[in-house]
């Protein structure tokens, strides 16, 4: 283990990608991902890694180029945000259906309109059903670690699915944090060069992306669903392996002072850190509250969530996106649906908060815990909106 160094998280993400010895990067600049793109270009143009850097003309082409590169056997990476991810939307389910292990960093940002460059999760939520493994990082160290792990997970023969790592825009991408980087030797040991199951080369000609008639399409879809569910086992295995090698263990659902707590806050991404301070302050006041942080969004870690919330009476879900005209925030809705049949399940309070970069402070988390106590039903509610 090297010593800790101070570095901007976006830059650290690209440093982590460089440690993975990628073969091809195809990146289109977008705020707040741009430092990732720029730093990756620096690394490749300075010859620090031997890779091709494709300066594509759009995000649609960046994901398409990654698909082509990955199909040809390369370790391919892209990074984007918000509108860029929305533009990629069409290609995302194709990449997963073709079982191409592309890795993507997504600097989470609100979706237009109106245009907003600031953070929320409304860019990744519409991609929920695209068949990608979807993870959220809470801090800079997790960004470094999860980036490296993502390639190993994506390329594992029992997985072969693309991975998107969510890194909250500005609130995480632009932080300067003390970070520990594994050495190149250590990463090489953890992540050997990619050995593709199949690739495009005249030495062994094959066809990829053949269309499906109604006779087979459903089977393909079920296979993809099964593959995504099954990937959790391998993800956990790889996280344990990482823990053994590097001393930092990752779990699909992380908890903080959750055991035996009456009330639990559920967060995804960088807000977990702020929420943990709120938990500390509430605990000091004698309020029985804890924190559950979802690291995995797809595949959904239902067993781990159930274990984490066992015995709690109120579950407060923090949603940084909205399903307009629907049942509330995507995370809250999904948790309600998955726990519907569970006997003695907690009351679930779903807050829509922190949209478009609206700051969510420690006091806000405390206020939401207070509000949840008074709330009688399980309808979703906006927090912090001026009426």
């Amino acid at each position, binding site marked *: 283990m090297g010593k800790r160094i101070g570095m901007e998280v976006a830059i650290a993400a690209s440093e982590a990608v460089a440690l993975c010895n990628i*073969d*091809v990067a195809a990146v289109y600049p977008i705020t707040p991902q741009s430092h990732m793109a720029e730093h990756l270009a620096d690394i490749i143009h300075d010859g620090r890694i031997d890779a091709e850097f494709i300066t594509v003309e759009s995000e649609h082409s960046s994901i*398409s180029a990654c698909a082509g590169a990955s199909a*040809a056997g390369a370790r391919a990476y892209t990074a984007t945000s918000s509108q860029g991810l929305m533009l990629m939307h069409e290609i995302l389910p194709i990449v997963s259906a073709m079982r191409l292990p592309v890795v993507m960093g997504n600097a989470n940002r609100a979706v237009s309109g109106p245009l907003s460059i600031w953070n929320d999760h409304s860019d990744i939520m519409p991609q929920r059903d695209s068949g990608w493994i979807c993870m959220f990082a809470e801090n800079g160290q997790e960004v470094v670690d999860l980036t490296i792990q993502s390639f190993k997970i994506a390329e594992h023969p029992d997985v072969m699915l693309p991975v998107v790592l969510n890194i909250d825009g500005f609130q995480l991408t632009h932080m300067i944090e003390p970070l520990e980087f594994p050495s190149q030797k250590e990463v090489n040991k953890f992540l050997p060069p990619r050995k593709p199951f199949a*690739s495009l080369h*005249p030495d062994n000609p094959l*066809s990829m992306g053949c269309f499906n008639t109604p006779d087979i399409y459903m089977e393909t879809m079920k296979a993809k669903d099964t593959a995504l569910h099954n990937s959790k086992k391998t993800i956990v295995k790889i996280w344990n392996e990482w823990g053994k090698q590097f001393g930092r263990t990752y779990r699909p659902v992380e908890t903080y002072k959750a055991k035996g707590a009456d009330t639990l806050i559920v967060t995804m991404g960088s807000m977990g850190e702020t929420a943990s301070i709120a938990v500390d302050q509430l605990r000091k006041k004698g309020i029985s509250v804890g924190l559950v942080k979802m690291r995995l969004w797809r595949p959904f870690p239902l067993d781990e969530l159930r274990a984490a919330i066992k015995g709690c009476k109120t579950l407060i879900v923090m949603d940084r996106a909205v399903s307009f005209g629907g049942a509330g925030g995507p995370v809250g809705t999904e948790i309600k649906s998955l726990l519907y049949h569970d006997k003695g399940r907690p009351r679930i309070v779903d807050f829509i908060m922190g949209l478009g970069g609206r700051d969510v402070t420690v006091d806000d988390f405390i206020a939401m815990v207070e509000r949840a106590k008074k709330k009688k039903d399980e309808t979703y509610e906006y927090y912090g909106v001026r009426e």
Partner: protein
Amino acid sequence: MSTVQNFEIYVPKLLDRREFFSAGHRACQGCGEVLALRLILKALGDDVVVSNATGCMEIISSAYPQTAWEVPYIHVAFENAGAVASGVEAALKALRRKGRIADRYVKSVAIAGDGGTVDIGFQALSGAMERGHDMVFFCLDNEAYMNTGIQRSSATPFMAATTTSPAGKVIKGQRTGKKNMPEIMVAHNIPYVATACPSYPIDLVNKVKKAKEVKGPAYIHVFSMCPTGWRSASEETIKLGRLVVETGVFPLYEVENGKYRMTMEIPKKLRPVEDYLKLQGRFRHLNPDDIEKVQALVNKEWRKLMNKVACMKPW
């Protein structure tokens, strides 16, 4: 892999005897596009990776679990053949350099229809050409969205009737002239641009071979006759390809490092455009005045091209 019967009798030194696009695909009778594709693949040989846009050639060739492709093939979506082929090219380059694949030169090839080239695929193509990837992009142009049921594209010729540019009482078919895609490719300052037509197979094959030899981006616009979409007789496909060239509607030329060269004999006088139009139901609604208008447009475009050919100085 099947081989051509009695191959020794026909062009033995010109074409690869192997078939890289196998028989048994689902193309329409008299399809000029699949004929072009077969010739292109023969001319390219086996050291290629094909990135194909959604469209007729994709649909007729790749119904899972079958494939007509004997060369490595990928289809991702409609508008991104240029981008997918960029990724393939970058990957092959990086992996070969790093010793992870055989030390063998493999050409990245993109194939798209006119919609996948001049309309929805325009941006990805422009980006790929501008970035200088070592690839050949083929536009197999049958002048409308045939796969979805003959809707107009920006490659549909002036006054042609399609299902979205019908020959109505007020508006008589396609209102604008064909977008000049080869010119747009020339404007990208790429080393090689050519037009071709499978009714001139030797010319087509020569151009494909030339494009493959180019280290960098090359573009070939292949006129692809479509009896289904043009309402023409399937046995007149080859004839239509000859007429479109003889009337000057689709001239055969190449632009090598900016230098224009006609690859067809330049006739003293072009054949009247009516000879070409009258064989196709899509032009059936044209009256003599309309044909005059089409002729005027063809004459103008022909003169523009002749001026460029006359000024044969490379940049």
